């Protein structure tokens, strides 16, 4: 069960993506630090205000993710068989689910520090992995890796790995079993239902 702990602490830092700078490692570092600085000062987020945390993630983190590619990878083979409208719906629902997860993880942040490992990349590289780790006293540090691809002048995150657990891979089996049972529309419906139930429980608080 220890990986779960790593997973949680990892999610805390998921918020760290990329900034406008050209070097991908600099961007990841800047966004991470910026987001954590905001969380450190924000009592609402610390006390579990998910809506506020979602706002922060939407504003600072989401612009640096390529959700289309993330969703395509998580859906796997069935992605190309899906219609454009289905693809759009899948990417939207998956995005909503992930944003909420990260936002919640941010509300659990407690003074961990993040180290970044130096990035070795050639100027011609268009696909890089940034390694970072979260340090916390009394526990093994947790590694967070971001996979990024060059998208025009920008770098976009298309997967990230927390303590060895890839976000895309973690959803692949869940998606494929749902598609096998009820088709692509079934998966869209179940993602919609999931998001709606999370909204409803958030509204109750």
């Amino acid at each position, binding site marked *: *069960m*220890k*990986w*779960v*702990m*790593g*997973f*949680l602490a990892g*999610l805390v830092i998921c918020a760290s993506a990329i900034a406008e700078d050209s070097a991908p490692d600099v961007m990841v570092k800047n966004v991470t630090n910026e987001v954590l600085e905001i969380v450190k000062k924000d009592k609402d987020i610390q006390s579990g205000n998910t809506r506020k945390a979602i706002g922060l993630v939407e504003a600072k983190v989401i612009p640096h993710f390529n959700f289309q590619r993330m969703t395509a*990878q998580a859906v*796997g*083979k069935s992605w190309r068989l899906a219609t454009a409208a289905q693809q759009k719906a899948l990417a939207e629902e998956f995005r909503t*689910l*992930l944003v*909420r*997860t990260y936002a*919640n*993880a941010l509300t*659990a942040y407690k003074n961990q520090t993040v180290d970044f490992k130096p990035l070795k990349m050639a100027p011609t590289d268009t696909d890089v992995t940034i390694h970072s780790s979260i*340090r916390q*006293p*009394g*526990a*093994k*540090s947790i*590694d967070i890796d971001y996979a990024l691809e060059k998208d025009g002048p920008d770098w976009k995150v298309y997967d990230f*790995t927390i*303590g*060895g*657990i*890839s976000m*895309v*891979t*973690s*959803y*692949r*089996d*869940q*998606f494929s*079993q*749902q598609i096998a049972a009820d088709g692509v529309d079934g998966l869209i419906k*179940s*993602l919609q239902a*999931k998001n709606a139930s*999370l909204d409803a429980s958030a509204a109750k608080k």
Partner: protein
Amino acid sequence: MFGITHEKDAIVKFALIKRLAPLSALFMLACTLTGCATSGNPKDPIEGFNRAMFAFNEGVDKTVIKPVAQGYEATVPQPARNGVANFFGNIEDVFIGVNNVLQGKVPDGINDFGRVLVNTTLGVFGFMDVASDMGVEKHNEDFGQTFGRWGAGPGTYVVWPLFGPRTVRDSAGLVVDLAADPIGAINDIPARNILLVTRLVSDRAALLPADKVIEEAALDKYSYIRDGYLQRRRSLVYDGNPPRRDESNE
């Protein structure tokens, strides 16, 4: 190394076999009941059995373990909880060191034994993690990882009653972990039981914040935990740098 004589060793092994025997009987029973439904997922050939055990474990957690952990979190102040976690973490560091040495990572093992030395003395029997404050980092090792390092493949994914997810390799690792656990070897039974329960509650309490994240993120909690577990263990065997696997579905 832990003062276990050969005789005691045999007793511990026997006790373990006795403890595991009902489990394997349960395994057979569940297989018969569920027909060990093949899921078609090559990663999880005994998914039917595993899902049944997963549901059982979830029930136990929900009705007993989690409420106790929540009570512990609510009544014991954070510094005291940290102390308890550090105390058990210090004992664990001995095993981490042994496993690092068994894996041929002697400098890491020395690091771990150094942690034990510092935390047991300066950290007052391990209640304070002084070593981390000094920058001597904690590792994560166990016998399952050691077997993996020695070349054993993970084998079938199994969800055990109470012990939870393991691969066959990690199940073997668990047996050794349990046999080598000094707390399990304490002769004073009431004291041993108090320590075992305290450790369980302390470990569970540390995971409480993760519950919400998993509940919210997972479409199917069973698959989510399985895929997380398998990836995590693979990563740990390679100390965070597993060889890249082609995961594309092209």
